[in-house]
């Protein structure tokens, strides 16, 4: 109980500190932007550790963070190998292909109202196919190595990016479009100089959601057949062995990689859509 009470106390004081710190000038510096969420994360971990110890949760249900950390440091080569297989090969390639085709498709169907009216509902429908059903099929089609994982990622990220891009391309104001009309700008000029820039906040919305989807997709697809490496493979085998510390070690890597990936996209977004009120408000 000491553990639990201590952890809760720590959590409360750390939160109070964060509330204070986030209003300091320090919070606006790069270090502050990392330190404050990091501290919050630490409080979560402490709470977790305290709960596991205080309530005597068995390690086969939920291992303590300290145990998981031990596993992480002890199995770096395995984790690295899995990371390369799943995230770099499966996730990233699928992300690039999926987002790329989604944006291109959005532009392609944007041009033709006929296609847009035809493809969007059908596209919505296809995208609603649940990945747990699609993954086995794609593994059957594309083999058990990373190619099938990339295919799953493509399918997963396609819809959110497409929808957001289509919405973004429609997000211009009447006067902005009229201006282009008075220049008798061609379709492509209007696209490049007005509609794509105006769509960027929306597109990045989609791209950000897609980062996490890409990760999940790549990992989940490995549950349906894989070579004997990869994060999904490791997780599913480790669960079978009740090696939950390994499961959580992989989850930690996934979370870290995912957050970093998301952060990177958000950073690019900040550079590209600096002009949008939602970005300006915080600068």
């Amino acid at each position, binding site marked *: 109980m000491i553990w639990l009470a201590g952890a809760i106390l720590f959590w409360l004081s750390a939160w109070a500190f964060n509330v204070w710190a986030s209003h300091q000038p320090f919070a606006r510096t790069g270090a502050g932007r990392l330190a404050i969420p990091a501290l919050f994360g630490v409080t979560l971990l402490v709470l977790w550790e305290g709960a596991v110890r205080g309530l005597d949760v*068995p*390690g*086969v*249900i939920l291992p303590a963070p300290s145990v998981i950390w031990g596993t992480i440091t002890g199995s770096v080569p395995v984790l690295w190998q899995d990371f390369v297989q799943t995230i770099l090969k499966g996730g990233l390639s699928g992300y690039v292909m999926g987002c790329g085709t989604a944006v291109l498709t959005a532009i392609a169907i944007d041009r033709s109202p006929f296609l847009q009216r035809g493809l969007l509902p059908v596209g919505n429908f296809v995208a609603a196919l649940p990945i747990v059903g699609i993954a*086995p099929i794609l*593994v*059957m089609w594309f*083999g*058990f190595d990373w190619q099938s994982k990339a295919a799953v990622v493509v399918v997963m990220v396609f819809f959110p990016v497409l929808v957001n891009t289509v919405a973004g391309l429609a997000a211009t104001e009447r006067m902005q479009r009229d201006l282009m009309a008075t220049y008798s700008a061609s379709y492509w000029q209007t696209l490049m100089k007005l509609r794509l820039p105006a769509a960027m906040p929306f597109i990045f919305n989609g791209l950000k959601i897609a980062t996490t989807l890409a990760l999940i997709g790549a990992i989940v697809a*490995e*549950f*349906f*057949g*894989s*070579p*004997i490496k990869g994060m999904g*493979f490791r997780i*599913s*085998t480790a*669960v*079978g*062995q*009740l*090696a939950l510390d390994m499961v959580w070690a992989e989850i930690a890597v996934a979370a870290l990689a995912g957050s970093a990936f998301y952060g990177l996209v958000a950073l690019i977004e900040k550079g590209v859509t600096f002009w949008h009120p939602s970005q300006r408000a915080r600068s």
Partner: protein
Amino acid sequence: ADDVTLQLKWVTQAQFAGYYVAKDKGFYDEEGLNVTILPGGPDIAPTQVIAGGGADVMIDWMPSALAAREKGLPLVNIAQPFKSSGMMLTCLKETGITSPEDFKGKTLGVWFFGNEYPFLSWMSQLGIPTTGGADGVEVLKQGFNVDPLLQKQAACISTMTYNEYWQVIDAGIGADDLVTFKYQDMGVATMEDGLYVLEDNLKDAAFEDKMVRFVRASMKGWKWAEENPDDAAMIVLDNDETGAQTEAHQKRMMGEVAKLTAGSNGALDPADYERTVATLLAGGSDPVISKAPEGAWTHQITDKALQ
């Protein structure tokens, strides 16, 4: 009536016919038990369910139960309705495989999730590395169906005599076009489908009594199923909530399962246990258990149940 929750290792099918029969035919009722059967699936680790308190007793393969025991979950085998192993490697003849020597350079589909140990130990006995290359085998984590063989993504895949093998046959590949290697015949068989409970519970007299009655009724169910395979299959079918099982398949499965349960009265044969442990200890570089477990089985229940 006393409540008992049983966690299966896999989906509702004739592999677990004994329990469904016991429930359906009122054998559990006769013993004053109210049994809930929880189906399993590819994502369910029965060990985890029992550790979380979601079940009183579970069905598992011995390698995975022993692995869990070493990880700190004190599981004890209280009964072993399956006498022999039904696992085998099924290969396409056209790949030219005729003996285990021919595996080299081929891709093999293996079940993981705690079921990989017999295979790994077999390969290490054969001296074949599982890291790929011309001299080793390329291992592929097989999903839960036989597609890798049909799509020729693997030369061999893991199958059960009572289930996946027949799916391959049903898909249209003749038995002549297949080569099979039964783990039982290769001397690397491990115990399948035993009943496990948590060690601490066994000290509780009331729980012990419940298990005694449970095992007695379950074995009665198994023997009834062996004698009336077709009826048992129909009972299983009635209990399948997914509505995906077919009559023909379940009847055939029941026939094959009966071959594996034949010869067991429910009590674990210590010799089988020793052979399983020996196989596992002989496993490759990453052994599932590092030392012979203590107290991983007991006759405490079966002794009373089978009087």
